[in-house]
């Protein structure tokens, strides 16, 4: 097996009396697409900033491409592409200029940068916006430009912090498509997200993070298998009745989770559980049988849902 491109051992980051990252260990192999899944404030972004050789760790070991970021920040960063959570494109420059200026930071020759800039504008479907002002772009376009910028140095590892947060569904799908292509080309992707569908779409393997610690690790399918049932039956009895009805559902399914607006029944066969419930004389207002998702894994592991 090839040596990992990222190795973190017992990584910690302390901000005064808050441990933002509290002893995280993981490895990422070359070409892998690795996700950090967790709610806001779980320590995902802080971990990304340490992996990005920008934020200094408080303790633990960290190696990126075989180098320690404390001593080799610029060398490591020369091999990374970074898509931060908040866009930081230069709004005083135009679209293409943003790529030209950024390419220089890697010490690349102007001609190489100009060629790549044109390729990347095509990749990001922004060719027609080449001379536009950054502020005139939509949210999705800005995101794509930021990704194009992150690729100007042909990075070994692409770090994406909440790449699609705040985008509409169509823009998200365009972005996923672009990221999927990079993955196919063998770029190592590391991304944080609090969207289950995003993690399931893009990640080969992921860690579930909460309060700066790893709660679980595996492929999306493994995590679902280990921490949830095959199917989930969602039933609604009305916000004021859910808790009361839940008491009468004891014994139904493998496990029951009561949320404010609905009851989740975990079972290998959701339809069968629904029949049992109706036979017991209970008639939900709505019912839905679906496959288990990472959302259920998260709920099981932390007792909270991801998006509150």
């Amino acid at each position, binding site marked *: 097996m090839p*040596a990992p*491109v990222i190795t973190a051992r017992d990584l910690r980051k302390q*901000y005064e009396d808050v441990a933002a990252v509290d002893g995280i260990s993981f490895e990422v192999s*070359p070409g892998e697409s690795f996700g950090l899944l967790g709610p806001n404030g779980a320590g995902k972004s802080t971990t990304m900033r340490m992996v*990005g050789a*920008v*934020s*200094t760790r408080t303790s633990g070991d960290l190696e990126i*491409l*075989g*180098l320690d970021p404390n001593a*080799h*920040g*610029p*060398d*490591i*960063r*020369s*091999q*990374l592409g*970074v898509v*931060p959570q*908040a866009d*930081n*494109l*230069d*709004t*005083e*420059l135009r679209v293409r*200029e943003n790529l030209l*200026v*950024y390419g*220089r*930071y*890697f*010490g690349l020759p102007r001609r190489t940068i100009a060629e790549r800039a044109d390729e990347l504008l095509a990749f990001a479907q922004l060719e027609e916006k080449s001379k536009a002002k950054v502020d005139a772009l939509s949210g999705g376009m800005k995101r794509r430009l930021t990704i194009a*910028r992150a690729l100007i*140095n042909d990075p*070994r590892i692409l770090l994406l912090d909440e790449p699609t947060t705040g985008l509409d569904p169509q823009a998200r799908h365009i972005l996923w498509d672009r990221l999927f292509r990079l993955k196919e080309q063998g770029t190592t992707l590391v991304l944080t997200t609090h969207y289950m569908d995003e993690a399931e779409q893009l990640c080969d393997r992921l860690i579930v993070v909460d309060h700066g610690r790893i709660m679980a690790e595996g492929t999306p399918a493994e995590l679902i298998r280990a921490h949830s049932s095959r199917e989930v039956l969602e039933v609604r009895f009305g916000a004021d009745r859910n808790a009361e009805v839940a008491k009468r559902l004891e014994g139904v399914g493998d496990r029951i989770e009561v949320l404010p607006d609905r009851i989740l029944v975990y079972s290998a066969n959701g339809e069968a559980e629904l029949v049992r419930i109706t036979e017991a004389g209970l008639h939900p207002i709505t019912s839905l049988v679906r496959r288990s998702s990472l959302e259920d894994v998260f709920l099981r592991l932390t007792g909270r849902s991801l998006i509150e």
Partner: protein
Amino acid sequence: MSAESPRQQATDAPGAPRPETARALAAGTRPRRFGAWYVAEHRFRVMRSYLQTMLATGIGSPIIYLYGLGAGLASLIDAPVASQPGAEGVPYLVFVAPALLASAAITVATEEFSYPIMLGYKWNPTFTGMHASPIRPGQIVDGIVISVTVRILATSAVYYLFMLLFGAVPSPLGYLAVLAATLGGLAFGHLLMAYVSTLEQDTGQIALVMRFLVLPMTLFSGTFFPLSQLPWFLQPIGWVSPLWHATELSRVFAYGYPEPLWLTVVHVVVLVAMAAVGWIASRRIAARRLGR
């Protein structure tokens, strides 16, 4: 060596590092060496977007001030202005022109080292973007210093040309006043940059600096009248003012302003010290702020 575990020795076998490690080390070399220049390049490109404003103020202000004060105020002041009681005086325009030059340099420095710094850290965090590339925080500061130095030099040079046109520079060493003014701009500007770098929010602090520091500094730094005209208890304002030191130094070069040599040396030392302290502080603050 003895601290290394056997396992580590096995994986880090002697000889060549992993190919991706070697690639990283090679790719990091140029940015380590030239990073500040890349940042300066970026800043020049940004400056190009407000080139017209820069040209308009760069050419307009020397004309307005030199003409206004030369043809206007100077016509009321018949008597030659002497810097110290008993010293030989010079025409008012000759007296005030070097001060206007220094003041123009400080104005440009104030413009470039205030809001653009807040912009880069917070409003449009391009510094964060630069730092995600191989550029180090200190290089960001250096790059800004390089680009602003060029702009101040250019502005001061244009100002100086107009001073020549208005016949306000009797000394052949006058061109050195451009350097004195630039040094003054950097002395004040670097300190301002260090201060602005510490601001998490701008709740009016920068405007306050402009109104209650830059403007009074112009009035109490021997700009329009010699510092010795002020009551003794106001004169220390001049001694700590980079504008006063830059003005006096410019006067020495522009018309052989009679002051003891040690005082000229003091001006240079004070200005260089201010510029150095502000620069070093800005670099440290940048490293702390961007590396959080």
